[in-house]
């Protein structure tokens, strides 16, 4: 029997025990104080800085970097948290290369932007390691607000509401809080249980009660919330997975990438986590990359990402694609799944069809390719599951399968706001969700205080 990496099929323990810790260590190790100073010195303190505009939460980046450069890391952290209370996680998971760092004028000047993400991590780490809390709660308003979902949008919303003196109850379907920060995202981007540490940091302000294992539509209804609370914020995330629409996709070994990632994030012993010797990931976004790279890091011999369009169409950033390539993941384009090949109900391979753009539409060419696979991960997008909303009062207006909100985050239903991945127009980014949660909180606060009662 082949051992270790060459075990046939789906198996755990492909690597030497110590190799797992090394493979899943911090992708970007934190800057030490000297490195942070050297990097901070590179910032030009631009006027109306392009990086700020590129940040969905509009962090005053030149200011926080200047504060690092002048030896005021705590002040720097406050500048960050003023705009983004989840600045610690965003520093780790933001695709900075397509946001602030892409806009950095040093990128234009020399192709080497200031490492804004790593500087942000430096400052926020300093504050969080000291559990330095920057915000006092305002006088209690007596207002009660329900936040559904303890992901980035919900946490950002809850923190801002708590600051204003409101009482916030967060209802979270999963046993742990943090949303995708806890259950999604590659493990090497957020090591040392950072997601839970951040939840603790955010809720330390007080006035936020999180109730786990409470799912909308199962344990409570929206109408109950609107009756009981002064306002409701929905930060539900995306619970569903798009289907492959390929023959045989119910074979054993065909799995959802998000579930694989969640399982990996929650695993206490990575060596016990089974992974295929040959893995195929279908998709072209961050989830596809996270699943593929982690498959490789778990010891899969051959990992192939198949994406139905071209390289330039991939949602995964260039950095993520390079990361995958550097880890030995093979990325193939213009291939769509056609049929999952199974033997005795277990996946043995996948048949894909080449694609081409014809008259502005993606069409199959008829030519096929077969790849051997013990495991196939679906990473072709998640979808919002509206079932939980229905039958629980007046239905909420949706479009394209997601909740419609106005510029302040208000839904079509009175007293109900929404933000994060579940709303129409979201970018499926942690940082965008934070911005939406924060802004909805501002809107809720304005609404609740404008009638003079608070």
């Amino acid at each position, binding site marked *: 029997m082949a051992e270790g990496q060459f075990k046939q099929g789906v198996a755990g323990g492909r690597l030497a025990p110590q190799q797992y810790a090394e493979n899943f260590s911090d992708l970007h190790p934190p800057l030490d104080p000297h490195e942070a100073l050297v990097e901070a010195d590179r910032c*030009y303190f*631009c*006027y*109306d800085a392009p990086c700020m505009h590129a940040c969905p939460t509009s962090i005053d980046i030149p200011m926080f970097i200047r504060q690092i450069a002048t030896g005021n890391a705590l002040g720097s952290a406050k500048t960050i948290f003023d705009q983004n209370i989840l600045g610690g996680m965003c520093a780790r998971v933001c695709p900075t290369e397509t946001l602030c760092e892409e806009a950095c004028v*040093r990128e234009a*000047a020399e192709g080497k932007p200031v490492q804004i993400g790593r500087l942000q991590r430096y400052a926020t780490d300093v504050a969080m390691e000291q559990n330095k809390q920057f915000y006092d709660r305002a006088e209690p308003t007596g207002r009660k607000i329900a936040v559904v979902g303890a992901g980035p949008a919900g946490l950002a919303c809850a923190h801002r509401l708590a600051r204003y003196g409101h009482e916030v109850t967060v209802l979270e379907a999963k046993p742990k809080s943090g949303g995708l920060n806890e259950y999604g995202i590659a493990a090497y981007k957020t090591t040392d249980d950072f997601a839970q540490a951040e939840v603790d940091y955010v809720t330390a302000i007080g006035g936020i009660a999180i109730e786990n294992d409470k799912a909308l539509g199962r344990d409570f209804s929206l109408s109950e919330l609107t009756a009981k609370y002064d306002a409701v914020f929905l930060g539900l995330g995306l619970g569903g997975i798009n289907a492959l629409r390929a023959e045989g996709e119910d074979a054993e070994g065909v799995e959802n990438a998000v579930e694989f990632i969640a399982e990996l994030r929650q695993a206490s012993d990575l060596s016990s986590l089974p992974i295929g010797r040959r893995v195929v990931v279908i998709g072209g976004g961050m989830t596809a990359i996270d699943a593929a790279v982690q498959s490789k890091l778990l010891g899969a011999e051959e990992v192939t990402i198949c994406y139905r369009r071209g390289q330039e169409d991939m949602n995964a950033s260039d950095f993520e694609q390079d990361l995958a390539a550097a880890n030995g993941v093979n990325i193939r384009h213009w291939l769509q799944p056609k049929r999952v090949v199974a033997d005795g109900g277990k996946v043995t391979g996948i048949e894909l069809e080449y694609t081409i753009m014809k008259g502005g539409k993606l069409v199959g060419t008829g030519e096929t390719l077969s790849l051997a696979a013990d495991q196939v991960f679906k990473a072709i997008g998640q979808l919002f599951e509206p079932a939980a909303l229905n039958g629980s009062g007046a239905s909420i207006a949706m479009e394209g399968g997601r909740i419609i909100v106005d510029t302040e985050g208000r839904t079509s239903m009175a007293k109900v706001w929404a933000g994060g991945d579940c709303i129409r127009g979201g970018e499926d980014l942690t940082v965008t969700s934070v911005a939406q949660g924060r802004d909805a909180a501002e809107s809720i606060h304005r609404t609740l205080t404008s009638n003079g009662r608070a």
Partner: protein
Amino acid sequence: MADIRNTFVGIKSPNPFWLASAPPTDKAYNVERAFKAGWGGVVWKTLGEEGPPVVNVNGPRYGAIWGADRRLLGFNNIELITDRDLYLNLREIKQVKMNWPDRAVVVSLMVPCEEESWKAILPLVEETGADGIELNLGCPHGMSERGMGSAVGQVPEYIEMLSRWCKQYTRMPVIIKLTPNITDIRHAARAAKRGGADAVSLINTINSITSVNLDTFSPEPTIDGKGSHGGYCGPAVKPIALHMVADIARDPETQGLPISGIGGITTWRDAAEFLALGAGNVQVCTAAMTYGFKVVQEMIEGLKDWMDRKGHATLDDVVGRATPNVTDWRYLNLNYVAKAHIDQDACIKCGRCHIACEDTSHQAITSMVDGVRHFEVMEEECVGCNLCVNVCPVENCITMQPLAAGTLDKRTGEPVSPVYANWTQHPNNPMAKVAAE
């Protein structure tokens, strides 16, 4: 290839780069290393009179300020003159000069302001075979409290007196090192010339406190919680030194008095600027103390390469070339008009030019054009002040472009006059009106 051999008050050296009197020239070990690295000469660290040597503090002697990436910009010290025995120094000087006959070895001296003291030490130095002496009338800390160094250099009458004594008691060339801690450097230089000195060297260091420790509230460098002012030097003082060199070079009373230029020289370019303003050679300290003796190799090659590019065969073709272009403000051409111009291809859109102009100057640079981030000079507002050039992080992205005579100055609505006209002739100058009546 340019010939950069130097003769300064008769002292020959293979290049114009001397190490200034300071820690790098305190003993034979360092000076030998400096000569091996290529330095053209040294001014040996200041000797005092015979007897128990001075003592230094046993804590920090140096302080500094830094720019981005902790690049040392300004430096200060509270070190005194040599704390080694006079005769040990003299023996080493003699040996080093014997080992390196082609290099300049000048000895810095500081003894009490009494004729006998100078009369006593000069023959001892002369006996070493040293090429000349430099009178340390500039050191601003410690020794000045004892009536020496800058305490002497701040009194022109003393400068003249000491110059005269030294010329009387030695055949060696006498260089007077001047302190910048005065109001007008020309009085000090004139006094040196009156006393018969062969040359002046400047600047010595500037009174300074580099920083304050905000934990202990003590000035840096801190000795047991206290600090005293030190002598400031390094790149930050270069503009002050250049001005003082130029002031002496163009003063009719000191015209032709050789000048050894000192103050923040870090690269060949800095050295060339001192030479152009009238320095016959240059002295360096902080650059060597920051980077080691090897920096002289960049200075030597850089100076030669520049001279070759420009067709300057010898240092004589360079020295003093910029001096006639230093003038008084009142003689500047008020009809000269320049406007800033931003090279859009080079612009990285940091916006610093805009905010500097908008907040602190003349509101002459756009930040947005047609809804797009775009920085462009509005000539109708631009007074040509150069602030945008100075704050732009990209060299040569923003340049000052003179308007040709006859073109319209959009700010004034007047064509640029071809005629040179300065403040002395300007109608707004009350003195000009008086002269016209």
